[in-house]
């Protein structure tokens, strides 16, 4: 099949993040949110369960599977039979995890409602647009709810959640949240009751000797947490705390490792030098510098003529630009212009 994406970037190699084996429960006595899953009112034809995270700070799948892949698949089968009986399930795994692939293929032999797909763990191949294109060959637009096309992308944790809460009707009120980054003493996987403020999750683990900033759901297109009393909810994926490098470092070209994985811009703002890094890395084959040129000339409205709507806002172009241009910001601004 023709690949839906061009390049992408292997973040896991560049920023290796190690998580410990153990999961720590966070105690919190305040009000918590109960689990709820809003079942779609449309008919679901395809369910996609992604067990191949492409970001290093995402929850590793061993924590969900806990060496009991069959258990997980049984739960998935129960959920499907109960709620989405006509649908076909697609489980996506990393092509390097051959054990897991074998286990899944064994399980699959008796089931015709299931198919297994392998994928390279390269960011952002698990973005909805790309994963749907790659598995089903369908084109969906960025930002569109996949339910409109009868596709449900199910978070693996929600599979367990639906099974425990709606089918077994047992208590289910915790969510696994990985926390990582240079602003922490250690990386941890926490078991948190949604409703817990971020502050009380992190207070035991953050480093006190440095300035740090806290981010939700990935560093490339996630959001910054300005107010640490903000609460975790059922859609939070991960939390990253990284050092704020707002001071100068001598000889940065010799100390690259020290600067990596901090908020440092790693250089100064320049003009675009036509280096082609941004269009080489863009997973959907756009030329982001064109948007910047439009923006720079004050012609934001012209950016639309260069296939702007195809951009999946993965942030890789800003990430790789040696002139440190805020390409993602420019793209969002141009998009918001109606």
């Amino acid at each position: 099949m023709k690949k839906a994406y061009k390049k992408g970037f292997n973040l896991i190699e560049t920023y290796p993040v190690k998580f410990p084996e153990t999961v720590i429960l966070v105690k919190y006595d305040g009000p918590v949110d109960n689990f709820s899953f809003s079942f779609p009112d449309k008919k679901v034809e395809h369910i996609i369960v992604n067990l191949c995270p492409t970001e290093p700070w995402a929850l590793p799948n061993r924590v969900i599977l806990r060496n009991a892949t069959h258990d997980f698949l049984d739960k998935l089968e129960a959920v499907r039979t109960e709620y989405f009986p006509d649908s076909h399930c697609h489980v996506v795994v990393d092509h390097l995890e051959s054990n897991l692939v074998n286990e899944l293929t064994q399980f699959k032999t008796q089931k015709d409602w299931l198919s297994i797909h392998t994928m390279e763990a390269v960011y952002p191949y698990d973005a909805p647009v790309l994963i749907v294109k790659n598995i089903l060959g369908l084109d969906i637009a960025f930002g569109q709810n996949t339910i409109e096309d009868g596709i449900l992308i199910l978070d693996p944790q929600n599979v367990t959640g639906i099974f425990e809460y709606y089918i077994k009707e047992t208590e289910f009120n915790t969510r696994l949240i990985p926390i990582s980054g240079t602003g922490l003493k250690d990386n941890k996987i926490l078991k948190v009751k949604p409703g817990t403020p971020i502050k009380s999750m992190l207070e035991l683990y953050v480093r006190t000797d440095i300035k740090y900033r806290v981010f939700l759901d990935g560093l490339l297109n996630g959001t910054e947490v300005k107010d640490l009393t903000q609460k975790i909810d059922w859609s939070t994926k991960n939390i990253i705390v990284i050092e704020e490098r707002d001071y100068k470092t001598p000889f940065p070209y010799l100390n690259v490792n020290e600067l990596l994985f901090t908020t440092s811009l790693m250089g100064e703002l320049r003009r675009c030098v036509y280096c082609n890094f941004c269009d080489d890395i863009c997973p959907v084959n756009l030329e982001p510098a064109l948007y910047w040129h439009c923006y720079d000339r004050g012609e934001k409205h012209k950016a639309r003529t260069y296939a702007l709507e195809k951009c999946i806002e993965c942030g890789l172009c800003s990430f790789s630009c040696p002139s440190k241009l805020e390409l993602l910001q420019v793209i969002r601004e141009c998009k918001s212009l109606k």
Partner: protein
Amino acid sequence: MKKTFKNIETILNKSLNSIETFIQSHPKVNFLFGALFEATDGLIRSTKNTAKNPPFIRSSMDVKQYMGGILAALFFGWVLPAIYFYGFMCVVPKLIVSFVVGVFVVDLIWVILAREERINEGGFVTCLFIPAFLPPQAPLWLIGVGAGISILFRNILGGVGHNLVNPALFGRLMLTICFPTMVVSGWQEPSIGIPTIKSLMYGVDAVTHATPLIAFKETGETASFFSLMFGANTGSLGETCRITLIITGIWLCVKRIANWRIPVAYLGSVFVISIIFSLMVGKTAAPPIFQLLSGGLIFAAFFMATDPITTTYSQAGKWIFGIGCGLITVVIRNFTSIPEGIMYAILLMNLLSVPIQSIIQKIKYRT
């Protein structure tokens, strides 16, 4: 060793910090020297800037490293071989003059006058180009004038990111116009064989000899490919040792600092077009391999034509750019009285890259 270095780093950092506070707390000093300090500081330390918008981490590659890569490639590609062939005393004073005039005089004055906050490291690259495409016996003042014109021209256009044409080549063009005989004479025989201290210092006695391209124009003789490849022939200071230029050029392409499409398109089209011309006009056109290995072609294809901002942004446009350069080069070499056409080819294509870019953009995104 590592520890001493760390200590030096800390001391340096502290002293720069105190100078910075001093300058910023005295408005008058700041007015005169603020920009100068920022500029030098920018070469030594990273910036304080942090990512305010997503993505909140950025890759470590920045324009400084980008230019640093080109500098390193140029150093191993032509400075070292040139020292071997023409001697230390021939090469290093030229570099010093070029840097002093280009970066430390013209650029510094520009920083103070125009209150730019940084010295652009692109200037180092330009200054390293100037001696490379002048003859080994070019006088020092010629190099100084060339470097000065180039940097001034580049700064007037607005520095890296605004260049319309390659500033170093523009400087060379001005020299060709103002001192037409100076830039095409003084080709010196390189010293070959086992180097001695004396040859490494001073080169061999200055025997001048026409370059292979001029010789071909006059007598129809071609030099041996082996001697062309390893630099045992006359030519500009930086263009003779093709083998190191090719190796460092390929390294640049692997690092993605130079876009591989341009050298491939340029060299490939020179090869193909000269085959066609050879078939058409026979012996009067230079044979293809000789075309590839003579003159500054290799140097220009890997280092000058790939200067990122002066080509098109579109990757397809880069192919057209390279092929255009190749075509003009071969035509000038074969059908005009000028032996070498690279400078004109690249300058012309630099200008043409603007319409090429917009045409390609129109074709690609028409709805």
